[in-house]
């Protein structure tokens, strides 16, 4: 089973995943008409700024067991058995924010949603684009990501690659696998900028 794997070191903070996510969860599914919809479709992936302003695409981990599901008062949160996706039923949700206390990653937002009951504020979060997946398409955030920060792959394959990477760093003659120099440059620039801001210059 494929899942969205996040590679934060490759995130350049362009936020295109947020626009793509909001569009995928709009009624029209088109960016140009989605921006005129009311309520305005909103993203379910959130690019947060780190200490040096580096980007991080923060999305639901679909934890198992899921703390939000355990904490949900009206029993509105369930797991889709086929994809392992943790889903919120907007019709059962009472907007009590109990899930906001439970989520250790802070990925749940509260607003009226184009796909929920009209004018009702509900808890909204990533649904792994299960509607798109049912049509054989990959999640919208992955489809739009150009830097490879978001990938849709078998978790076992991703784990193996990471294990190999760690293993390579301990053999003295090989060293770490080279990544694209652009990422290192961007990180270095952001770090210097953050230091300049901190020193008040």
């Amino acid at each position: 089973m494929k899942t969205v794997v996040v590679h934060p070191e490759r995130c350049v903070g362009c936020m295109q995943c947020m626009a793509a996510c909001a569009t995928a969860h709009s009624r029209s599914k088109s960016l140009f008409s989605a921006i005129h919809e009311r309520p305005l479709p909103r993203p379910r992936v959130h690019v947060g700024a780190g200490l040096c302003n580096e980007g991080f695409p923060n999305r639901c981990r679909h934890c198992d067991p899921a703390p939000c599901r355990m904490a949900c008062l009206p029993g509105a949160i369930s797991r889709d058995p086929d994809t392992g996706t943790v889903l919120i039923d907007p019709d059962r949700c009472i907007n009590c924010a109990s899930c906001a206390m439970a989520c250790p990653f802070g990925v749940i937002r509260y607003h009226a949603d184009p796909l929920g009951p009209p004018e009702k504020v509900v808890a909204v979060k990533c649904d792994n684009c299960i509607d798109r997946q049912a049509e054989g398409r990959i999640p919208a955030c992955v489809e739009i990501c150009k830097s490879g920060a978001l990938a849709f792959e078998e978790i076992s394959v991703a784990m193996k690659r990471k294990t190999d990477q760690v293993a390579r760093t301990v053999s003295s003659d090989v060293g770490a696998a080279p990544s694209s120099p652009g990422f290192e440059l961007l990180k270095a620039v952001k770090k210097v900028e953050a230091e300049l801001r901190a020193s008040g210059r």
Partner: protein
Amino acid sequence: MSYVIIGNGVAGVHAAEAIRRIDPDGEITLIGDELFPPYCRPMISLVLEGAVTPDALPIRNDRFYDDLGIAPILGSRVEDIDVDNRTVKIANGETVPFDKLLIASGADPRPIKAEGLDLKNIFYMRTEGHVRSMLTALPKVQKALVLGGGLVGFKAAYGLMRRGIATTMLIRSGHPLSMQVDAAAGELVRENLMGRGLDVRVGASVTAFEGRGRVERAVLADGTTLSCDMAVIGKGVLPALSFVPRDKIGVDLGVLVDAHQETGAKGIYAAGDAAESTDIARRSRWVNAIWPEAVDQGRIAGMNMAGRAVAYPGSLSRNVIRIFDMDVMSGGVVTPETDSVYDVIHFHDPKRKRYRKLVFREDRLAGFVLVNAVEQGGVMLSLIRSETPVVVPRERLAAPSFNWSTLLPRAG
């Protein structure tokens, strides 16, 4: 193996399910006071408000007891536990033997001392039944009095206001939500509610209710009287433990439990509002009578009762309330004494009506209060619960831009 669970609240229900997952054959007896199917207690205020109907309350379907092979004894309270002979005595004189016992009897509303409490239209708001009787009284009510500025008081006041009833809230302490938030946040909440038409009076308490059969006015401690045709008492809760033999089972405010939710009496466990466990943030014993704790403690107790040793790191105070357009979340230690081991930082943006207070003990987060923008509260609670050292600048946690990646190590 025979298991007896006292209480069909959320702790009891989760314990029964945890036992059944591990032990498919054991006999489970569940003794409950309320006849209504296991339901979501925090949602009863939504029924008062009219946002949901009572049929939205049950957390399990009506086949729950049958499906899990549980023998329910409903509509009666336990009178006594015979620790030595391993039996529980019920109000009708019946005794039920047990090998493993769970005390998940929950809590009852804290009673108040005042004259005239037997008058009609004076309510507690704890059970589905309480709200049902409130709804019956509502059509003839024009002016209501809410005693207590805690979570229950607020939910009652909010519900009554949504029903178009003129409501006055009497708070003994200096600001609302005094158990949940600090004075600054409490003041923000008070201002917000006053702006919405709630009459909030601080430093006020009732000494007597008067009326002919039905409550007509309340007499306050300062001698003034307030007319009302309904009163709701929300002065907190106390663990329901009248049946617990205190010479055999250790009781402080709640039943004292260890990391496995087990009491000093072997094979007897406690969970939920009735249990007193170690509070992670306070580093002392505490009764955290909140829904998510009851869920966790019930599960942990159930697994341990069925023979699977699972430790529980401790409980944590936390709460969230949405009142009109204002969200308030708090967790852990929120009002530490001055000159204590705690450091406090504040962030206040009056224009956006945002307030944040963070409480640190050494290099760890120990508590917080958030007014509005509460989405990242779970990250903070997770920091407290896991006792993770905070190595990033503390102001970054209080800033509006705080998010999970703020906690990640610096790039490069």
